[in-house]
């Protein structure tokens, strides 16, 4: 192949310098001269079949397709050549021969390339007798919807599926004498579709689309956000498909580095993250979501520390940041703050750092060595001092003591004891104290435990109770089974361990004898409704029942340990004693003080706390005179292979189950054995990673353009 030469040509009177390997179409478009084109697409080999892009060339008889013809030195091109214009109109007519004559009911209206081209060409067809493609919509496939009566046979879907993806699940076929685009196989799954939706992306009409539910979820989002829901739904926007691809490529340390780019606790999150990514994963339309959290854990287990060489470390700034509370949010601010060159002092009320990762989530779910290791990484990130067993009484006071900025993240560590008769009997505990004692090895329970509440913390209380030797553990909550705030996964662990659930129950009284609790009165509820903005319900008469209990644990919410009187802590409060913080970065009522995490939002999740804290440290750094840039590239550059290949029944690959220790064993041996869940081994991880749909590949396809996209450019010439 000869090398490309520099050439100069004239298109519509405009002199253009380009190279000899550029097509006339590309040269024109790059210079703001629009030539209608339909079968041509930036990511596909030119085909020259739609005849839309024909142009006249001086000294050449007839017309040529500008998407296939390369630029030559001295060429004089006329895009508005009379014959070319006629051919364009005729091509338009041919497309409308098969395409419905009415746009009504088409969800692509307003974003349809065919409509845009027909508007530009000034020919709306219908001169030829209509010859519609007679077929009904195909809604039998997941994710992708076919309404091929709108197909104009441009072939872009077939080409992208074959040429770019190497899948080939779409093909042209003659059906009853008519050329059609059909599935090569019984359906998409059996045909080996990878559900990458490249076909949807390139379809110029409303023929191949995703279901309304999926498309609606994308409204108002950017392409990147909309196409990759796992990443956009993660509060910290961890690049999920990128690290899963690294696992697929066998580069596990790189996968870990990708996660590290957004969060300082990849390993802990690998155990306990609430995984919004999995809820958003499009694989659930095929069967179940990709097991992303376990893949994260697998990646974190293969940390080789190489990423540390690429991590940024700024020179010391001489500025001091006080962090109140060393949980996930506080540690995140400490980590990035130290890397930005600031001096950090963490004030921690407990003996050790980690917050809910240590004192909330039980050790059998999140091994303490994991927390210790990741906390250590934070402490080594720069100038970080820890004052443990130190409670801060007043936040602004720290500014007076010489700190340049303060970050408040003291979490929610005070459990709520509901105001009901018997709540102060002996044997009645609250979640936070109980789990903290469990961590410290000082918790005790009787034989019959009742946990009140229906969230993940309640589930942890039941697990701890069993491990402490409870014979029975009952759990009562207002919510119906399907409405419980506990995740299905965590609830199923509790059920395996033997918890008896009592859903849709209120608990009006704790019964006692001789000052010690003996049981909980529960009663069914119904008819939930809103009155004056509050949820109310009816108690159903005759459903009263007593659950025997010598230990009762309230797991009905928790609050910050901040006094209700604003002047005491020195910050404006909201909803009782939560810190009032504004905007995404968590500005408080006092200049120089930011707040984030559970003490602002109420009890949420580790990942939400990390994400909010990242925004806060960006704001704090800017306040202290920095650029507020904490972005870092820790992973090597990834080769994102657009080629996926055909895999029969790919969509049916089942979600890989992690190695969870059977319930009796994990309860009995919790002190001597390791965690209750061993995650994935390498084979499992590779298998699970291969299920990923790689939704991010769609971002690499060129967005569809329209004639008016080139108008402004032309003016600028």
């Amino acid at each position, binding site marked *: 192949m000869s090398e490309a030469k520099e050439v100069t040509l004239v298109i519509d009177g405009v002199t253009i310098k380009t190279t000899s390997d550029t097509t006339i179409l590309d040269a024109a478009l790059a210079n703001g001269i629009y030539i209608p084109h339909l079968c041509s697409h930036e990511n596909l080999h030119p085909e020259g079949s739609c005849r839309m892009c024909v142009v006249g060339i001086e000294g050449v008889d007839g017309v040529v397709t500008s998407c296939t013809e390369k630029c030559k030195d001295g060429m004089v091109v006329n895009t508005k050549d009379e014959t070319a214009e006629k051919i364009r109109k005729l091509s338009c007519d041919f497309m409308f021969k098969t395409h419905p004559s009415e746009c009504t*009911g088409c969800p692509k209206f307003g*974003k349809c390339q065919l409509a845009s081209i027909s*508007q530009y060409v*000034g*020919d709306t067809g219908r001169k030829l007798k209509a010859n519609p493609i007679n077929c009904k919509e195909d809604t039998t496939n997941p994710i992708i919807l076919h309404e091929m009566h709108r197909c104009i046979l441009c072939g872009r879907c077939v080409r992208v599926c074959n040429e770019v993806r190497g899948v080939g699940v779409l093909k042209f076929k003659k059906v009853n004498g008519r050329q059609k685009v059909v599935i090569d196989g019984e359906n998409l799954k059996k045909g080996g579709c990878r559900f990458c939706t490249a076909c949807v992306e390139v379809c110029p009409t409303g023929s191949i689309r995703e279901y309304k539910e999926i498309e609606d979820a994308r409204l108002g989002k950017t392409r*990147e*956000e909309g196409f990759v829901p796992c990443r956009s739904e993660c509060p910290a926007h961890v690049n999920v498909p990128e690290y899963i691809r690294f696992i697929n490529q066998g580069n596990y340390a790189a996968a870990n580095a990708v996660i590290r780019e957004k969060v300082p606790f990849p390993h802990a999150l690998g155990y306990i993250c609430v995984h919004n990514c999995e809820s958003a994963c499009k694989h659930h339309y095929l069967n179940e979501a990709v097991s992303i959290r376990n893949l994260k854990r697998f990646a974190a287990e293969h940390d080789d520390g190489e990423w540390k060489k690429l991590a940024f470390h700024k020179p010391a700034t001489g500025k001091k940041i006080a962090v109140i509370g060393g949980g996930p949010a506080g540690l995140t601010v400490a980590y990035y703050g130290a890397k930005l060159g600031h001096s950090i002092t963490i004030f921690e009320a407990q003996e050790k750092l980690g917050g809910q990762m240590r004192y909330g989530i039980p050790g059998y779910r999140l091994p303490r060595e994991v927390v210790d290791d990741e906390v250590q990484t934070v402490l080594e990130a720069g100038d970080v001092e820890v004052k443990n067993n130190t409670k801060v009484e007043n936040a602004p006071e720290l500014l007076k003591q010489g700190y340049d900025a303060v970050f408040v993240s003291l979490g929610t560590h005070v459990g709520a004891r509901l105001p009901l008769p018997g709540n102060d009997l002996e044997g009645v505990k609250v979640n936070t104290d109980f789990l903290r004692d469990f961590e410290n090895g000082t918790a005790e329970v009787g034989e019959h435990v009742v946990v009140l509440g229906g969230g993940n913390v309640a589930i942890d209380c039941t697990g701890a109770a069993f491990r402490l030797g409870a014979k029975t553990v009952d759990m009562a909550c207002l919510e119906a089974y399907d409405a419980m705030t506990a995740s299905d996964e965590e609830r199923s662990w509790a059920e395996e361990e033997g918890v008896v659930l009592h859903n849709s129950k209120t608990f009006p009284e704790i019964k006692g004898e001789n000052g010690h609790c003996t049981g909980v009165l529960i009663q069914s509820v119904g008819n939930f409704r809103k009155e004056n903005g509050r949820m109310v319900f009816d108690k159903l008469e005759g459903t009263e029942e007593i659950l025997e209990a010598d230990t009762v644990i309230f797991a009905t919410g928790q609050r910050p340990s901040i006094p209700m009187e604003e002047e005491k802590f020195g910050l404006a409060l909201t909803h009782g004693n939560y810190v009032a913080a504004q905007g995404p970065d968590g500005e408080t009522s006092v200049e120089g003080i930011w707040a984030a995490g559970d003490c602002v939002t109420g009890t949420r999740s580790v990942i939400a706390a990390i994400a909010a804290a990242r925004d806060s440290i960006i704001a704090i750094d800017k306040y202290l005179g920095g650029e507020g840039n904490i972005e870092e590239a820790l992973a090597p550059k990834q080769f994102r292979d657009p080629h996926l290949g055909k895999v029969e029944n790919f969509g049916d690959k089942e979600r890989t189950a992690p190695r969870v220790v059977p319930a009796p064993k994990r309860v009995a041996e919790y002190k001597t054995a390791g965690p209750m869940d061993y995650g994935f081994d390498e084979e499992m991880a590779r298998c699970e990673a291969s299920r990923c749909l790689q939704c991010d590949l769609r971002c690499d396809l060129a967005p569809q353009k329209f004639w008016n*996209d080139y108008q402004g450019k032309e003016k600028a010439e």
Partner: protein
Amino acid sequence: MKTLTADVVVIGSGPSGLSAAAQASEDGAKVVVFEKANVSGGAANMGMGPLGIGTKHQQDMMVDIDVKSAFKEFMEYTHWRSDARMVKKYFENSADTIKWLEESCGVEFAGAYKYFPKSHETWHIVAVNGGIGRNGGAIMNKHIREYAEENGTEFLMETPAKKIVKSDDGKICAVIGTDASGEEVRCDCKAVVIATGGCGDNPQMIKERTGYEFQKNMFNFAIPGLKGDGIKMAAEAGAGTTPMNVEMMYILPNSDAGPDCIPAVFMQPNLLVNKLGQRFIDEEQMQNTTFTGNAISFQKDAIAFSIIDSKIAKYYMKKGVDVVNFVHHPDDVADFAEAVDNSIANDNPDVVKADTIEELAEKLGVDAEALQDTIDEYNDMCETGDNLFYKPSKYMRPIEKAPFYAAKFRPGAYGTLGGIKINEDAQVLTQEWEKVPGLFAAGTDTCTIYGDSYMFLMPGNTMGYCINTGRFAGSSAAEYAQED
């Protein structure tokens, strides 16, 4: 955040927004347009042309209509439940607007036409390839846009406006939107024209504002993107609200993509019955989509069944249909029987075929006995004359020969009408009729001139209202923005 500056920001680039932008920029204002979609023209890209009264085309075609007679007829029709000052100004300017479209924008018209036999020749059809074609609206919109661009208007495509910003003194000062890459775009300005085309794609808002329930008793075109953005933004900026309505018509909801012969045949003036198996209309009115839509809307479950027999079908397939209109005018309907079979094979729920009246009644969910009685009575009247609703006898063809065909018609609508209160200068008013300084609105977001029923006797009315009020808004906004 990207920032721009303009005199006038126009929100939406359907015919109203395009005309506002073109007019304002022609008047010397610097204009920026925010548009949600990738294609300019909005719903009007499906349309064929605007209304004009007293135009050169009408003169050439010897059409006897003038502003005075049109105004009087219009006000009679609407029982004066309409802003007479606006109607007068709109009609009075409509001829100049046709001229403006031709001479300034470069639009070519094929002439002035009726929609259906009983209507007036007010519809100025945009020429497609020099003659009558369809969806010439798209071509017209391209010309208006190009004219606006020639005058310096800047278009931001795929950039929905989110908020109209007012300064502390209550004056409009900016519009904020988001572009395709997710970046916020702020355009500082002195005046804003809202022209977002109503809320046809927002079932909840339709229910709240009109009482109709989407896909229950209202099968309107849910044109993607018409979420009522402009109406909401206007209200936030202090605009008064008006009652809202739909542009009523009737449709076969699932037959958009199918062959034209199906709606064309079933819209012929044959037997139309309701769920009780009774006639409820002089079927000659079926050419008037507004009247028929109104009548169907009034029936049990808001549904009506058009019934023909094989003899009628065969007659149409051989000789063509009785009544044509501009939208349904197939050259021939010879493929009708085949098209029905295909539709049924493709599970189109709108179309039914049966060998007996009893089977037909069952498939339609109508009482068989009642339907048989109606048909017997109807067939008798085919000899004696329609003494129930006085349909002309030329349209009385008996229903006798199997197989029988039927189609299920529902009330439909192009979109919604009204929402933002304006005066005849397209100046937005508060609920107390005070001006909202710097805020103007045009097109279907504001169109309440029809009262309770779309004025279909003067076709091209909505597009005409849009372009004319767009021009009013554009010139008012430019004038306001350029004051000192």
